């Protein structure tokens, strides 16, 4: 399918056109869901959960609050602590944000709507997701603040610990799909059958429920969201590695955090919920080629958006409900519970793959 990227609805596009379009869409795919979920969930949903209204003044129902926040952060003074390692301090937010943009590259939004369809896509995604650890460590170290240092070190320990269950949870899916390409995983779900019935395809969360659970827990930890928000624990470390950042640099961390949440939700949707594909009986009724009609390049992003909203809803719901684990407790949760469970899941999946 990746060979067809240059054509859409029979029209040919030049290389610079597709490249420019992809660049534009990469920004859209990162920033639009980030803004959407921040407004919908972080501003509004959580306010309703906490019996308050949330932003109401900027625009109808506070819809322009994001613009106001952007303006506020851009006009703030750019403070760099006197003792800071200036270059590293300035570079850290970019490193975090770059990891987010690299992550979105492998997410497919339609049969042709992919930024880059690597054969080892999911492997690439899991590898670049840990680039953000470097950025966080850089921020924690270069800030020359004790709170930042503690936060950065906590983050490094935590993100590395939860990288493992994240990878292991995906292995089950890869065994089932027989490919490392994210597009391939989505396709195999769309074409899959449940005991010979292909009406809804075979979304992997049915068979990989344990893997899905582990993946979502590990994602929560990778995002340093409560109950795994020890690195930015606001009641003890003020804001962890972000303590010394202000203005636009803080905004970049903020965008990085919430955009990464969405992209992990995109990935989880691709791996476990069938990605951009509609249930085949719906797709077949709508389009001649079913899920592989060119129209799916337009419907796919909407389907992905819906699934992403569903998953980020869970992420934020958990975030605003639970108290946080202590550092040692979350480590032992990863090493003593999640990783053995993930390994058992892989063993069972492998066994069943051989049997069937």
């Amino acid at each position, binding site marked *: 399918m990746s060979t067809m990227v240059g054509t859409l609805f029979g029209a040919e596009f030049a290389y610079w056109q597709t490249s420019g379009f992809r660049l534009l869409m990469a920004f859209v795919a990162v920033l639009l869901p980030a803004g959407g979920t921040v407004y919908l969930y972080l501003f509004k949903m959580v306010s309703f959960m906490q019996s308050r209204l949330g932003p109401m003044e900027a625009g109808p129902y506070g819809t322009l609050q994001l613009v106001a926040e952007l303006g506020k952060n851009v006009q703030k003074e750019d403070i760099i602590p006197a003792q800071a390692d200036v270059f590293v301090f300035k570079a850290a937010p970019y490193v975090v944000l770059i990891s987010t943009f690299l992550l979105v590259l492998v997410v497919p939004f339609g049969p042709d709507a992919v930024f880059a369809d690597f054969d080892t896509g999911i492997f690439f995604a899991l590898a670049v997701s840990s680039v953000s650890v470097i950025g966080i460590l850089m921020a924690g170290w270069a800030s020359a603040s004790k709170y930042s240092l503690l936060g950065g070190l906590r983050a490094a320990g935590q993100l590395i610990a939860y990288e493992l269950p994240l990878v292991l949870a995906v292995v089950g899916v890869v065994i089932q799909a027989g490919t490392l390409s994210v597009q391939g995983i989505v396709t195999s779900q769309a074409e899959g059958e449940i005991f010979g019935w292909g009406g809804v395809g075979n979304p992997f969360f049915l068979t990989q429920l344990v893997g899905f659970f582990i993946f979502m827990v590990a994602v929560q930890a990778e995002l340093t969201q409560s109950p795994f928000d020890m690195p930015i624990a606001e009641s003890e470390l003020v804001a962890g590695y972000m303590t010394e950042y202000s203005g636009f640099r803080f905004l970049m961390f903020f965008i990085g955090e919430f955009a990464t949440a969405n992209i992990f939700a995109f990935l989880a949707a691709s791996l476990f919920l069938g990605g951009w594909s509609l249930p085949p009986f719906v797709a077949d009724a709508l389009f001649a080629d079913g899920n592989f009609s060119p129209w799916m390049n337009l419907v796919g992003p909407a389907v992905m958006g819906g699934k992403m909203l569903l998953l980020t809803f869970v992420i934020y719901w958990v975030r605003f409900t*639970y108290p946080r684990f202590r*550092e040692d407790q979350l480590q032992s949760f990863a090493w003593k519970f999640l990783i053995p469970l993930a390994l058992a899941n892989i063993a069972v999946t492998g066994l069943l793959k051989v049997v069937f």
Partner: protein
Amino acid sequence: MTDLADRRQMAYIAAQAADARVNVELEAEGMNLNIGPQHPATHGTLRIVVQLDGEQVIAADPMMGYMHRGYEKLSEVRTYPQVTTLINRIDWLGSFANEVPFILGAEQLMEIEAPPRARWIRTVLFELARIANLTLFLGDMGVQLGAVTPVFYAFRDREYIVNQIEAVTGGRFHPNFDRIGGLKDDLPAGWIADTKVALGEIRDFCDQMEDLLVGNEIFEARTRGIGVIPADVGLSYGLSGANIRGSGVDWDLRRDSPVGQGQGLAYNEVDWKVWTHPDGDSFARYWVRLQEVRESCRIVEQLLDGLPSGPIMAKVPRIIKVPAGEAYVATENPLGVMGYYIISQGGLEPFRVKIRSASFSNMSITPWLLKGAYVPDVITILASLYFILGDIDR
């Protein structure tokens, strides 16, 4: 409360403390961390200097006084009725409770006794102040542990009680309502029924907190076995209130002092219970305060049902001159035992007022308690000890 998980937690804490002691002996070079005076966990301007080895506390040193307002000295240049305006601001969450021991002390010196109705209403307001104070703690403990939602519920439901206090006294935060010889005013019409509704809301809030926090595995993991205060250590540091009742010491001045039992407050007239918890950890302190809020609701309801009629004010001279003498009156305030030592030389103003506030004494155990804890546990322990900065630095 000694199932396997708990014992493992205790053993873990003991091992931690032992490690910290070894580090002290080796004189490992640590990192000094200033928690405060401006810090999200201190609710004001408390500063704790902790010496860290990694994330473990080797030594902790609370530095108080950033909010000292000199109320003891200021009281000396104010007449007795004026003093209550000041001392309202000591524990600002349960303000009415600050006035009561001072007024009772002055009444003792003047040998005036408030009429029964005033005593009962005083007790009702005293308990409402306790509810207004402790509900905020119940929510705030969640914030300190990373669950932001409970505190919003706490503020929402505390509002019902604050409204009721406002309806009687006219002040939401600083009622300034207690008078020598009685109260300023009687209850407004319809207040009793409204208060019962408000108490229902508080009961729902307690159930909600029980679901959200007490029953939560993470909350239990974060609080059980953390900051254990053995009863004898707690007593030797002068802890009071729920902090000492959480260690299993059955001591409550509402029941155990003559002031609570009829001489000023009417706790002898109602059926209630002092809650204790044997564990002495952060969880126990939270649990005891949760039960105390429920018990306060019971006390207030019983008092409102049996409210006697009669005057609200005893016969008091228009210009209050307190005869020479000394009196110490302590009551069981929301934060613990609060007492006023009043020395009068027969003038319009007190000669000297010594304020024994609960948080100041409760704070004194922190260097002992924080040794060997991790930074996240420091916050848990400070939150569960529950101090109010105004109550530490008068």
